[in-house]
């Protein structure tokens, strides 16, 4: 009996740790400027289950906190690719990429030097 409970508790805690409520992930998302920042963060936060999204212009790192029971990391990356931004795993389609304003076309290294509106 005791062993059964222990196993159950272990299993539960395993399940719990595999499905964290506040899972934190940091990964690279390509982008240039403040406009990219708000676009990337907006795309991520709108995925159901994402609680927090913050993208850093300097390092191109996106930090997200999300509920693993409600969404998968892949879905978030997909949503980001939908608005035109690449991650290592999922690249944006050319069609979506080309919709970006000129100063956000990060695949062209010259675009970083353009003037970025506030």
């Amino acid at each position, binding site marked *: 009996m005791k062993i059964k409970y222990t196993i159950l508790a272990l299993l539960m805690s395993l399940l719990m740790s595999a499905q964290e409520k*506040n899972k*934190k992930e940091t990964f690279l998302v390509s982008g240039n400027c403040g406009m990219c920042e*708000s676009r990337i*963060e*907006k795309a991520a*936060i*709108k995925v159901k289950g*994402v*609680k*927090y*999204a*913050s993208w850093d212009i300097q390092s191109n790192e996106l930090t997200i*906190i999300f509920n693993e029971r409600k969404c998968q990391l892949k879905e978030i990356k997909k949503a980001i690719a939908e608005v035109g931004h690449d991650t290592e795993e999922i690249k944006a389609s050319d069609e979506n990429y080309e919709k970006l304003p000129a100063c956000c076309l990060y695949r062209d290294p010259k675009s970083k030097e353009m*003037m970025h509106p506030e």
Partner: protein
Amino acid sequence: MILKIPNNSFFWLALMGICLGFFPNNVFGQLKIKGNIAAYNDQKAPFPLSGAKIYWLQGNNETISDSEGDFSIPFSKASKRIIISYPNFRNDTLLVNRPDLGRIILFPEIALEAVIVEENVNPLQRSLFDVQNVVTVDSREMLKAACCNLSESFETNPSVDVNISDAATGAKQIQMLGLNSPYLLFTQENMPSIRGASQVYGLSFIPGSWIESIQITKGTGSVLNGFESITGQINSELVKPFIDKEWFLNFYGNSYARFELNARHNADISEKWATGIYLHANKRTAKVDENEDNFLDTPLAQQINFMNRWQYSDAEKGWVGFFNVQYLFDEKQTGEINFNPDKDKFTENTWGSEVQTNRIDVSSKVGYVFPDLPFQSFGLQLAFSNHDQNSYYGFRTYDIQQQSFYSNAIFNSIIGSTQHKYKTGISFTYDGFQESINTQNYNRKDNSIGAFFEYTYNNLEKLSFVAGIRIDNHNRLHTFLTPRLHLRYALWDKANIRASIGRGKRSANIFAENQQLFSSNRQIIIENSEGSTYGLSPETAWNYGISFTQKLYLWNRTLVFSTDFYRTDFVDQVVVDWENPQAVSFYNLDGSSFANSFQIDINYELIQNVNLRATYKNYQVKTNYQSGNLQKPFQPEHRFFVNANYETVKQPSGRQWRFDATLNWLGKQRLPNTQSNPEIYRVEESSPSYSILNAQITYSFTNKFEIYAGGENINNYTQPNPILASDDPFGEYFDSTLSYAPVLGGVYYVGFRFKIQRQ
């Protein structure tokens, strides 16, 4: 040749201009172009570069600068462009349009990783993203006026009106949306600060040089800070030990013998602790009576103000904190010029007044951000103050002591995602008043406990709003709800509309808020008797407003246009009635009372580094007095404001000129009725309109040292007879409350600032 050619570069310049097109090359064979090549050393001082190569863009002539950096090279008309090169320095190419090129500075060659083009943000910022109608004023703005203290820091700002409340003490009152300062909430680092006993003089207890920035929110405030705010909130952030300058020293003196000293020192104690010691002292030593009414035009005054701040920050664990101790001593003497307190106090020899204040403030703020959850935090604010004012005005004594305790615990988090944020918490306040007029005591204790919840929604595109509610239980106001709502909607590119609605409630501290009444022989009448505070019922008002802001680029420069309309509707009010010249009456409102305020603002960078700010304001402030529905006295219906400033480009050494000028025009103001007085002691029905011009020039020698000079009321406008019956101060008509314009003429000042930034 008969023609004698003067050895003068201007002549050559003119000659060149005239002849350049007509003469063949060889005529200019002898014309020499000269100059001096230099570079900056580490101290940003220029030193000569010898051996620099100077040559024409086209052509063979070239030369080398001598040991003084000087060079001379025959002019080449074909080229016109000269190149200067020196190893490890960037080449400079110049168009030669004069024979003496003067000093040419070369800059070292640095492999630049990135060039950042920065624009200085305007020191007065109106955000497009804040949900509330907030204007942020930073410390640069405060350098534009003499800004000895908080009340003067609004002189270059159109959102707030600075009025003079009485001719004797010269205390400045702040107004927003056409209503006096008791209806707005002052906070210092988001904790209520100037309230109750310090309402009138409190603004002069915060030295301007301690202020880092000010946030002015028009309309109803946030529920976090309590239920009292009605027309707006003014928050001042003080300088912070971790980021403030290491040393700061400022000295100021003006033409009416007022002197000020400000000194600050900040030091890091460890990685997590920093502390700052701030000192302010001021003194007016000379007796001024320029209008020859035998009364001081401005009080003799002195103040000592000391603060010690501690800042704690542990980014890893998520703890931050502030701990402050402030001590203030302030003393003012006013009245007849010959008044000698030791001899004449409480006698009919001469009329005089003294106000002495001792104040201690202790406060702390602790915050914790959950390290794994950056959107979740907890904060605790605690403040204690003891305010002790002893004063007399002629034969009237007025003493007030207020002990105040404030605590507020706030929890911040999200619902689902950061699109839905909330703040919730509880607060507790206590105020103990011991107040007396002559022998009449008005002691009271107020306490309240409350809970609040504020929800912020942001759809990340067009709409965001903040909806808050709080419930409070107050021993005099009983249990009540305070709802507040702010909304922002982006209409189109760089334009948005904001709306707000909310209710505020407070007990009026009738004497502390209207202390000018003591500088008159008006009788004090309190008419109701069933209310809970001085026999009066509490004040309740709704405030609603709408504002529109558009930013745009006009001829490549930023233009900000904004307009707003606010209305404050009193459900209940303690009316202060000055309409009988023999009395001041306090009674609860019967009928309607409202304040409408309309404002249009334009901010534009006229030409490079010249900013212009222009504002028109219209106020309709009408109250049902016992004598009828009237516009509030001393309230101009129209106000106009223009501010212009110019800054030269800052040199690497820190050298810079700054110029600033502000013009305030006030339309006519209705004056209280004085018909029942004898004819010589009557005032007009309304004041004339007038303007006040202030200007300042600052010259910064280096990043460490600057001097400034300026003038206030340069056009020298003063009220002809600011004190009624000044010839008979113990008679029944004596009154210094009828003040609508400055008593003091042009004030000129000079000062310096010395600062050492942190390493």
